[in-house]
């Protein structure tokens, strides 16, 4: 469960203070596909970046499973980020590494001493010498990458480089990469905004499948109505740094009280 309480973010510039998020309260349950929708400039990108502390909130708290993460720094922060996956509008893949190495990245950066193989206790693992651990780690990474390649259906592209892939395929690689370390939360920052509608559909289908199979909580920020309607069970509408509507997807979109909600539904901003 993620509980965001009175979250405020102010960007300080020389001329003025710019409030990007104003006292945001959100509660996200485990296994939700949670939508945050709003027009550009509403503050959604900042909001999602606060959840893995790419942006540091000015005030307020973000509790994940009861623990406030906003105070984390150093090694604890790195550890937190390993438990939260993220995908982006522009995919942000490593252009000089092939699909396999991209997917493996998150696993490669875990120190050998912390890389505990599934089905092995910490004690058993500690007994192994450094070289055994290295060998095991490599085999385990390969096994996990194979698993992920199957999940996102890219087995035949495993040795290709990102430049040789289509947008949809790149986003699949990014999804696999984000899931490699088995995060409990997956953040999607306008993940389908650079894709055509057909590809968008297939990526959303994939996210939904992943959510059902692994129970990973997915947080989606978007300015596209249809994305929210397609996969989100809950949604908040963000406008001018504040939440103007919240609830289940049906509730929010049937209740056309707020002007911004209307605009989003009516015009498809």
């Amino acid at each position: 469960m993620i509980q965001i309480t009175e979250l405020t973010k102010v960007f300080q510039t020389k001329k003025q203070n710019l409030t990007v998020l104003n006292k945001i309260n959100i509660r996200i349950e485990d296994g939700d596909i949670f939508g945050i929708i709003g027009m550009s400039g509403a503050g959604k990108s900042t909001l999602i970046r606060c959840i893995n502390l790419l942006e540091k909130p000015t005030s307020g708290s973000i509790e994940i499973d009861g623990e406030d993460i906003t105070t984390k720094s150093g090694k604890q922060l790195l550890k937190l980020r390993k438990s939260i996956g993220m995908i982006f509008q522009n995919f942000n893949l490593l252009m000089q590494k092939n699909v396999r190495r991209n997917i493996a990245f998150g696993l490669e950066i875990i120190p050998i001493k912390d890389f505990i193989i599934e089905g092995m206790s910490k004690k058993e693992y500690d007994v192994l010498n450094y070289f055994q651990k290295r060998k095991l780690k490599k085999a385990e990474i390969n096994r996990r990458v194979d698993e992920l390649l199957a999940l996102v259906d890219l087995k035949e592209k495993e040795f290709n480089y990102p430049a040789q892939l289509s947008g949809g395929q790149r986003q699949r690689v990014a999804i696999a990469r984000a899931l490699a370390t088995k995060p409990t939360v997956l953040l999607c920052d306008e993940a389908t905004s650079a894709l055509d509608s057909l590809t968008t559909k297939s990526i959303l289908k994939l996210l939904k499948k992943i959510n059902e199979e692994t129970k990973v909580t997915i947080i989606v920020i978007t300015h596209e109505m249809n994305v929210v309607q397609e996969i989100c069970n809950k949604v908040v509408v963000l406008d001018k740094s504040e939440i103007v509507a919240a609830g289940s997807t049906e509730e929010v979109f049937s209740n056309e009280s707020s002007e911004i909600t209307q605009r989003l539904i009516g015009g498809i901003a």
Partner: protein
Amino acid sequence: MAVLKEFLDNYGSMLVQGTLETLYMTFFATLNAYIIGLPIGILAEVSRKGGIHPMPVVNKILGIFINIGRSIPFIILLFAAIPVTRFIAGTTIGPKAATVSLIISATPFVARLIENSLREIDGGVIEAAKAMGASDTQIVFKVMLPEALPSIVMGISLATITLVGYTAMAGVTGGGGLGHIAISYGYHRYETNMMMATIVLLILIVQIIQSIGQKLSKLIDKRGKGEN
């Protein structure tokens, strides 16, 4: 033909010697400039405002250091650095001595090249690595350097070519190499043939370095379209 044969008989070995000295100075100086300049360039990029680990004071100092180094013309540095050269190389003439000034001059240049190569990387890729929990060191060694490698390779060939030019200048202070031959034979003794020969050799060296750099950079760059 006979003229060419006579010329080579007389000066051939000297030109070979000069070429070797030029190559020695160039590569040895480039190598050392990278050993010192690479970490400085990385630190300059990492510490800048908006970098992965902003350190304004460190960045300012590095910036000043790099700019001072780059604003001293090599021909002046060559003389100004004589005491340092004597201290390090034990002599102030010959290729070995010239190499010291070359390294001093090339290091800030290399640092700037590295900094620029690293800055070209798409910020989104670094953000993604951060989001995955990569430490600053991991971002540098597992993301920034590998992603910038094709550009770094181009930088190396640029630095090497610049240094070929500098080695020729080092000929003025008796630095040896083709520059020394061009000045003492081509200029002081009016032997136009020698002047021409050194120019041709220098052009050849630069061309070869340039095309090796380009080929290598293209070979390792995976951003090109098409199946491999």
